[in-house]
């Protein structure tokens, strides 16, 4: 209760400062519009179908990119993680490709696919893939040796070993990777729209900027922030739910 109250105080304080900065003339009203103006505009936008259409486009490329990246990363990561030879042979390649900033590929994607959602998807998939892939490799390789030997001596089949041994071990890693990938995919979905110009919230931000519409710009920044919060909260919840049986979550609950 105290936490919620103090949190609300913080939020209100921030909004008050935002309102006061242009009101007192500390920042030009054209550079930082009143908070009330921004939220007024947002309230107006939310009743406009065009806003929701843009939101849908952004979230569509986010969802497609995240799904493709996750499927590819889980498939490849499981194979590479389970075979020591592959793990060793791919190590340097992975370590070289992973830090390549995905935005460096934007020009290439634009040349190959034009100013379309496909170009944005290349960037999103590339960035999100590594987050999941690396976690899956670690997770799959983390199987307890005693548990593995036990499973062998009890004669579990390959499928059973995957299902009852590898999957539960790798699941916490996978969920962490998924949570990180979801956040990264959202960042790149919006970024791609800003730079490439495929329709969506990001392009609207760029258009507001070039039109000098500060009120609309700040409103959209708030919207993307809220979107990010929703994505974080949903994936954190999913992580806790799917790992309800896991020691880390159980221990957390016990101390509460």
């Amino acid at each position, binding site marked *: 209760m105290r*936490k919620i109250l*103090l*949190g*609300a*105080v*913080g*939020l209100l*304080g*921030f909004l008050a400062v935002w309102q006061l900065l242009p009101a007192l003339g500390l*920042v030009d009203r054209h*550079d*930082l519009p009143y908070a009330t103006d921004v939220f007024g505009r947002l309230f107006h936008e939310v009743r406009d179908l065009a806003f929701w259409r843009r939101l849908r486009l952004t979230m569509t490329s986010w969802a497609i990119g995240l799904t493709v990246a996750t499927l590819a990363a889980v498939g490849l990561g499981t194979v590479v993680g389970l075979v020591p030879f592959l793990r*060793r*042979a*791919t*190590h*340097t*390649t992975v*370590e*070289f*490709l*992973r*830090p*390549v*900033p*995905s*935005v*460096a*590929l*934007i*020009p*290439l994607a634009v*040349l*190959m696919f034009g100013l379309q959602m496909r170009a944005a998807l290349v960037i999103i998939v590339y960035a999100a893939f590594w987050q999941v892939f690396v976690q899956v490799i670690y997770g799959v390789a983390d199987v307890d*040796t005693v548990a593995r030997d036990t499973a062998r001596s009890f004669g579990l089949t390959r499928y059973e070993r995957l299902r009852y041994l590898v999957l539960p071990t790798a699941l916490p890693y996978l969920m962490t990777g998924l949570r990180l990938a979801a*956040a990264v995919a*959202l*960042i790149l979905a*919006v*970024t791609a729209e*800003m*730079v490439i110009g495929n329709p969506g919230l*990001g392009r609207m*931000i*760029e258009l*507001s*900027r070039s039109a000098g519409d*500060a009120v609309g*710009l*700040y409103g*959209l*920044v708030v919207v*993307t*922030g*809220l*979107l*990010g*919060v929703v*994505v*974080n909260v949903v994936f954190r919840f999913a992580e806790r739910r799917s790992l309800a049986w896991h020691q880390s979550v159980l221990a957390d609950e016990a101390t509460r």
Partner: protein
Amino acid sequence: MTALGAGRTAPRGLGVRVAEDVLYAVGLPVLAVGLWAVWSTRSANRFLVGPRPLLDAFRQTWIGPAFVDDVLPSVYRLLAGLFASIMLGVAAGVLIGRFRPLREILEPLLEFFRAIPPPVLIPVAMLLLGITDTMKVVVIVSGAIWPILLNTIEGVRATDSVMLETADSYRISRWERVWLLILPAASPRIMTGVRQALSVALILMVISEMFASSAGLGYRIAYFQRNYLIAEMWSGILLLGLLGVLLAVAFGVVERRVLRWYHGMREVTRA
């Protein structure tokens, strides 16, 4: 390594083992470049270039005045942004982590700010600061500071309470407590945050230059693409990749030094 594995590798000589490691490390990259070279001579896709033209373009584009005009300013902004992020993030993180009321007041705000996709702040920074170097550094800080700040807060909160109370009863001054106890205790988490911040900072360096610049790596690459200078564009992508790898390697070295005590402690507890 299990005992079985050690027994198997021990009889072989050191040279064999080193050769094997090297083979594993360069095998796949060499294979990939080879395939790429063969394929590029047969493929008619004009957006892809072979390794040889790429290397030529790399040498002609980046070695020379472009290095001073485009690469160094970018790297300088990147490092300045990272430095400021670490300083501000750690300082604010210690403060927020130590004072519970402050943490509770700021929690929803921090949750919101770190969820904003950082590139969205570029237009905002352009409005408030104009198209300047400061603006680009501020953009980098506005994105890279969050992982450092949040990890520092968590690390500071997790400081061993017995040690804190010991420090209290020995009347260790506030400064010394922060410097000798809290910061070291939080350093593993801080380093985790810094590693995440590296990739964010690099992305923001590129994007901010693609948006608002007439020089810099991001600007150059976008320029090459718009003018269909394909090999040059690829060389820019390669350079950014190298920069990313270099940052990761440098970070690895620093992390091993800073956290040597921590890794050593973990080994001991595991054994």
